[in-house]
């Protein structure tokens, strides 16, 4: 797979990931190489194979709907980059 500079910009936008010009250039080359290697799996016939998400059998788990105390609010808010009145503060999202 040949990854173009445009692909890199598109994917970075999907991931909300800011990249420097230098990173864009390097990733264009490296992603092509790594995906080229990843494509070796195309040699395997998987026509009648079902996909595996978890290797160990999983089942949905329900828990009792009971109120339990959560972590300490002060300790949680202490980690906020910006805090206002015990709430997380972010740039305005609506005019």
């Amino acid at each position: 797979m040949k990854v173009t500079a445009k692909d890199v910009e598109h994917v970075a936008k999907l991931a909300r990931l800011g990249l420097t010009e230098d990173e864009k250039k390097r990733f264009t080359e490296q992603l092509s190489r790594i995906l080229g290697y990843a494509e070796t799996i195309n040699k395997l016939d998987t026509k009648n194979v079902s996909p595996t998400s978890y290797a160990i059998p999983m089942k949905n788990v329900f828990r009792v709907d009971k109120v339990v105390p959560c972590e300490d609010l002060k300790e949680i808010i202490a980690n906020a980059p910006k805090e206002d009145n015990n709430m997380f503060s972010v740039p305005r999202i609506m005019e």
Partner: protein
Amino acid sequence: MELFELTAHELHAKLDRKETSAEEIVRSVLGRISRVENSVSAFMTVNIDEAITKAKEIDEYIASGKKITPLTGIPIAIKDNMCTRGILTTASSKILRNYIPPYNATVVEKILQAGAIPIGKTNLDEFAMGSSTENSAYKVTKNPWNLGTVPGGSSGGSAACIAADEAILAFGSDTGGSIRQPASFCGVVGLKPTYGRVSRYGLIAFASSLDQIGPLTKDVTDAAIFLTSMAGHDPKDSTSVELPVPDYRRSLIDDVKNLKIGVIKELLGEGIGSSIKKSILEAAELLKKLGAKVEEVSMPTLKYGVATYYLLATAEASSNLERYDGVKYGHRSDEANDLLSMYYNTRREGFGPEVKRRIMLGTYALSAGYYDAYYLKAQKVRTLIKNDFDKAFSKFDCLISPTAPSIAFKIGEKTDDPLSMYLSDIATIPVNLAGIPAISIPCGFVNDLPVGLQIIGKAFSEEMLFRVAYTYEQNTEWHKRKPKLT
């Protein structure tokens, strides 16, 4: 012998006989850290005061005549991607440079309940993405056997601190080999348990269908003791399995007579160093001499493991790392004029090159038009790899291979070539894809650097792994060697 050189089971015996105290043990280990940490750089944080205070509490507890557990008073290092309440937890990333978790990971809670003493947080490749610990945003950990070489990764700090006697036990996490490969490079024991055996609650997620916490220790006995204390179902991790936890010490049996052991042909071929191959074949020969039935087994899909892994693990990572957006914790860019610029700039400044590369790869593999060709295809190949293991285990009790294709490489040797770095996990990755357990134990030296033997078992067969590993260890001397650090 100094206290810091001993294993957990040896220290436990001394504590039990009242020949030493938790405070003496902690001070011995802290003294060792102060002498060698400058050369090794295994730790992100060392909890000096908290460890001494805790040791004094433990000594009072012991003096009151209460029963002690195998972990009581034992200093334990914790990889810095596991949450520790009130103690800085960075995942060796700038984006978490100031994160103080408001809760403990379940495994941390368990060792605290058992009376163990957290001695510090260890360095790793940022978010556990890497095979050399060079991707840490903070420091480069050195291999105690040769300070010019890497300790492996991503649990490089945990493996190095055990090899350097800077902790008695250490937690690692393993997504594609991150416990076993550094264990191999540093000449210590490292076990990746079956997926679901140990709770992942409080482990900073990388690839949730592959991540598993496990022990890094000085010998097999300690690994059995440590796993016994960390394993078990946890209501806070719905992927942890509701199976009883055996006392793994009971599986420390020096006998492999009539066990059927398969030597994986594909992991002794192309890409594996000839001196590594020789060490593994010698180990196989010894197991045969001890009565095991050793035969070669072919597993043709294993060579697709790395390609499969770098599609699946990066896809899961790209999703897991969406949470680092500058809102609730960690770094937020000063250039956050609106919501979008906050996301872009926070993530640009906060993530290192390897993490960005993997977010890009994973997002690409999941994006419209490529999902079927990459992600879904890789999930199907995952099934084929798992089938190959199932087939092998219908014939064998366990399988052996090298843990890594080489001995520890030089610092800086592979940093410019991500693909060559990825290939250093060629022997460990298939095990994570299949969800099964594997242990790495020392099995020789090449150029004075350790070689690791990987023993792989079927799901929930950790007892078989301990038995084979213990038998090998009891009949060899490799694990007794120590690096010369001054």
